């Protein structure tokens, strides 16, 4: 029995044979075929097959990730049929007399070199596209297994790390879990595993050996280890753990489609936090009622320069249409503090958390804000959009942000560009200032969403990234909870709704407290929706409200 230790990036336990992902390049053969004409025909057939596969992938990508993603595969399709490439392959096969696999690999290598020699980073990177199509054509010619898994039974899939084009074509019915030598928590493998709800262990490095191929393993994503050739006792223990996890998941699944209502009939909306259009499927899978926080700054973090209006528009539109009319709250970009971006060219600050960030940048640099608002309002025609501004401290900031929205709406009207007239505008309450004047702010907006991570940091004067503050950073601190209560009351007095989109929303120890305060919405990560729903449905607010609110507002001395 061998134990491989890595980092678990997707929880769950699964057991099965370990198989390595098969890449076509590993199997390139070189020889001189007898019939050159037949070899050329073999290439033509493989080319047609590749074009067909890429067409299917483009359609799949279009459904899963939109037109832009599909275009990648369509470009590859055209590269496969490129006239220069075809001529080179033809001459290698018919004149030099080599086999089709070798001809394709050599012809593609020439094209890749031509790209690699260009003086522009973008074009140099296209060498990777040529290598990708080379791999595909060679794979088809050499009869490499479709989907990269050479097994009839489902396996624990081992690899270095998987590229996006590889993860998208994996035969998912054959995968029980992932083990990778490289990778990161945000790699495609990790994202795919979390979406599929199967274990993934990454970063195991050289512990992963080819000789383990085909041997029985058990992967435990919750603690990040993989046991090769487990003994009976270990296997029994892990399989029991697996049963328990599955049973719990199964029980939670029964809550899909059920309302978030307490025993005494109080309901609350449970929405999800996302950072990318690709995060929508897990939201729907876990029955999230909407998106309570789309962190639009991730679009900025993914780009090397300011994302264009069209690029943003496509991303927002995709989320709105995929959510099919359910509410989607998009937060305007929250750059600054812990999320710094080079191309913003922001001066270095002593205290970035108290510095130029989020709405402050937007109001100081209206051109950046304007592009984002235009993209948002254009996208509003495709679903139910709400826009939320982060890092508010004063009423004038909100008025200025609203004026910027009015300006954009006026422009779009004049251009005849469609947008929705019913976009709600709200703000994040994440500074003590905003919480204290929430009675006034409530008159300006349609909703509040409390960002508890920042509200805690600013209220308690505790840097949330400083690991040494431990017990001082207490999100359950009565000052934080009293502010949340105050904000909810001021919202309701003014007839607007109030939710929480910070980590605290998913904290089951506080669910009763939040219900007692009458919060209207909690926005949490997709996998937290069903456990939270279960907690809500077990709660009887009338039985705990008086006690909890009394404890919070009364004069106790022990906190």
């Amino acid at each position, binding site marked *: 029995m061998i134990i491989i230790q890595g980092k678990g990036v997707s929880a769950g336990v699964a057991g099965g044979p370990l198989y390595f992902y098969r890449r076509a390049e590993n199997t390139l053969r070189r020889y001189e075929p007898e019939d050159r004409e037949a070899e050329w025909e073999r290439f033509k057939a493989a080319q047609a097959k590749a074009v067909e596969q890429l067409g299917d992938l483009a359609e799949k990508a279009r459904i899963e990730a939109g037109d832009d993603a599909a275009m990648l595969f369509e470009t590859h399709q*055209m590269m496969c049929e*490129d006239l220069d*490439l075809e001529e080179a392959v033809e001459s290698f096969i018919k004149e030099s007399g080599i086999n089709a696999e070798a001809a394709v690999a050599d012809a593609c290598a020439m094209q890749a070199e*031509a790209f690699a020699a260009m003086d522009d980073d973008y074009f140099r990177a296209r060498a990777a596209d040529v290598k990708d199509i080379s791999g595909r054509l060679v794979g088809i010619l050499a009869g490499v297994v479709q989907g990269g898994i050479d097994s009839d039974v489902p396996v624990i899939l081992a690899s270095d790390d998987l590229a996006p084009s590889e993860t998208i074509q994996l035969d998912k019915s054959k995968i029980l879990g992932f083990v990778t030598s490289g990778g990161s928590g945000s790699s495609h493998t990790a994202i795919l595993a979390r979406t599929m709800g199967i274990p993934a262990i990454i970063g195991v490095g050289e512990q992963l050996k080819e000789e383990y191929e085909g041997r029985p393993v058990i992967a435990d994503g919750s603690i990040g280890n993989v046991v090769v050739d487990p003994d009976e006792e270990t296997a029994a223990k892990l399989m029991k753990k697996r049963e328990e996890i599955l049973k719990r998941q199964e029980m939670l699944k029964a809550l899909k489609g059920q309302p978030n209502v307490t025993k005494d009939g109080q309901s609350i909306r449970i929405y999800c936090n996302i950072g990318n259009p690709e995060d929508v499927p897990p939201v729907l899978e876990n029955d999230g009622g909407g998106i309570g926080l789309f962190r639009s700054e991730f679009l900025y973090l993914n780009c090397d320069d300011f994302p264009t209006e069209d690029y943003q528009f496509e991303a927002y539109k995709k989320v709105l249409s995929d959510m099919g009319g359910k509410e989607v709250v998009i937060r305007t970009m929250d750059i600054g503090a812990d999320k710094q971006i080079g191309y913003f060219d922001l001066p270095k600050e002593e205290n970035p958390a108290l510095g130029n960030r989020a709405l402050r940048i937007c109001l100081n640099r209206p051109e950046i804000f304007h592009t984002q608002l235009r993209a948002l309002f254009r996208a509003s025609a495709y679903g139910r959009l709400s826009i939320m501004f982060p890092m508010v401290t004063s009423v004038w900031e909100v008025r200025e942000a609203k004026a910027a929205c009015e300006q954009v709406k006026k422009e779009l009207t004049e251009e005849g560009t469609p947008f929705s007239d019913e976009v709600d505008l709200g703000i994040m309450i994440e500074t003590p200032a905003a919480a204290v004047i929430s009675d006034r702010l409530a008159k300006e907006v349609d909703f509040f969403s409390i960002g508890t991570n920042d509200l805690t940091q600013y209220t308690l004067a505790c840097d949330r990234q400083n690991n040494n503050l431990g017990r001082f950073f207490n999100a359950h601190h009565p000052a934080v909870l009293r502010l949340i209560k105050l904000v909810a009351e001021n919202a309701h007095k003014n007839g607007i709704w109030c939710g929480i989109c910070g980590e605290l929303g998913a904290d089951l120890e506080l669910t009763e407290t939040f219900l007692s305060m009458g919060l209207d919405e909690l926005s949490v990560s997709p996998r937290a929706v069903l456990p939270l729903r279960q907690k809500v449905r077990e709660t009887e607010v009338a039985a705990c409200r008086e006690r909890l609110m009394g404890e919070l507002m009364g004069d106790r001395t022990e906190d």
Partner: protein
Amino acid sequence: MKSFEYTITDPVGIHARPAGLLVKEIKNFAGNAVTIVKGDKSVNALKLMALMQMGIKQGDTITVQVEGPNEDSVAAAIENFLKANL
């Protein structure tokens, strides 16, 4: 032969996506040969990779030559395409 000049405004130049779209566009006009000329280099616009390898950047002026039975309308269509995408 019909020809016109165009100056690229896209910040990345003729990159994969518009190059692909351009090839797609030109495939609609079978029977017409389209050549892209930049400086002393020229390329058949149907050759995607060769087109990309010209390394045409923002601010570069290219000459588009169209030869064929409907060269006028094809040239006009390509000019519209370039304005919209590049």
